[in-house]
């Protein structure tokens, strides 16, 4: 499967270089995504207002299309514009808009998945991080989070109650988050 993100980036690149057909395809490709976001957020408004907002977002993308850096990923840029404009339009129409990041999880998640090596690297990184935990915590994370085994089984194997297991998992996850954060800071 080709990655839609690369596609969009290619289309917008061509569009900004003067290819009107590529630009039309880009806008047609983006519109359903924008429409989905507007629909999910604007239940208090009628469908015609939804379409007005969709068009406002498309206009904003149009007016600001030169601010995308062609050597940078398209989606963070696109998402930023859509979010700004949707919030702005809902505010102007008298409704507080809340845009939880989950609404965008689909489009945001698409980028890392594009690279088949990314998943392998992620698995390797996870293993490296788990190696820094004590063996028992690491086993809890592997069993519950990675292999998704039943808590009762894992508890029996490790001789822990389910409550203790949950607490152990929670602590291990916090520790992992701290380790992962420290790790990325070093790379900066």
């Amino acid at each position: 499967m080709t990655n839609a993100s690369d596609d969009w980036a290619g289309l917008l690149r061509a569009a900004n270089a003067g290819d009107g057909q590529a630009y039309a395809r880009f806008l047609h490709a983006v519109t359903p995504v924008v429409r989905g976001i507007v629909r999910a957020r604007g239940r208090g408004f009628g469908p015609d207002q939804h379409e007005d907002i969709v068009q406002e977002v498309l206009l904003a993308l149009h007016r600001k299309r030169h601010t995308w850096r062609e050597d940078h990923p398209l989606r963070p840029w696109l998402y930023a514009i859509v979010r700004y404009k949707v919030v702005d339009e809902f505010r102007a129409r008298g409704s507080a808009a809340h845009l939880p990041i989950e609404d965008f999880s689909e489009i945001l998640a698409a980028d890392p998945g594009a690279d088949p090596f990314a998943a392998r690297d992620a698995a390797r990184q996870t293993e490296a991080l788990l190696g820094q935990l004590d063996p028992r915590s690491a086993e809890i994370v592997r069993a519950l989070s990675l292999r998704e085994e039943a808590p009762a089984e894992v508890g029996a194997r490790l001789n822990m109650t389910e409550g203790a297991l949950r607490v152990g998992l929670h602590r291990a996850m916090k520790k992992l988050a701290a380790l992962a954060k420290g790790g990325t800071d070093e790379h900066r």
Partner: protein
Amino acid sequence: MNTDDLIADLAAEPPPPRFRPAVLAGRIVAAVLLPVALFLGALGTRADLAHAWANPVVPLKTALPLMLCVLALGALLRLARPEAQARALLRGLALPLLVAAGLWIWAFATLPPAARFAELGLFSLSECLGLIVLLAVLPAAVALRVMRRGAPQRPMLSGALAGLAAGAGAATGYSLFCTQDNPLFFVTWYGVAIAVVTIAAALVGQRLLRW
């Protein structure tokens, strides 16, 4: 209007001119330099400039606002991209502000009480404040105008940075004219002048930089 028709209309428009932050930065820098050059051309730098700079505190009067101007300008142009994260950009501005605060405290601690605020006449004060603000009007207007080409997520913050770059740039130029070498004077009143321009530009930016 049907969305498909809208898309057809938009696609028929010519492609946008390229967005070059370096060119935009150049325009803002030119707008900083022009009034400063006119001002220094008419009134000249202070006569004892070379001599005064032998005291290491005096070059700081020029270097600190210059640094602030450059950093604010860099942050401003990055904020022109909608996906920019403001927080990391603002952290970079802390250094000149911390040095300025340190300089103020050091001067307060080392100067005898009578000398601390000796130069604080109403004339010198209004001269310093008024001239910096005056020199900053053109660059602030140009910076705000330039930012309209961008897509800043934070219009008010972007306006503030435009004002900060303009005010700090104006203070840099003014510092070559100003003969007040007491940090308590110049840190305070340059700071107030820059703050005035920053706040004014933030208020204008809040309206002007929405898109």
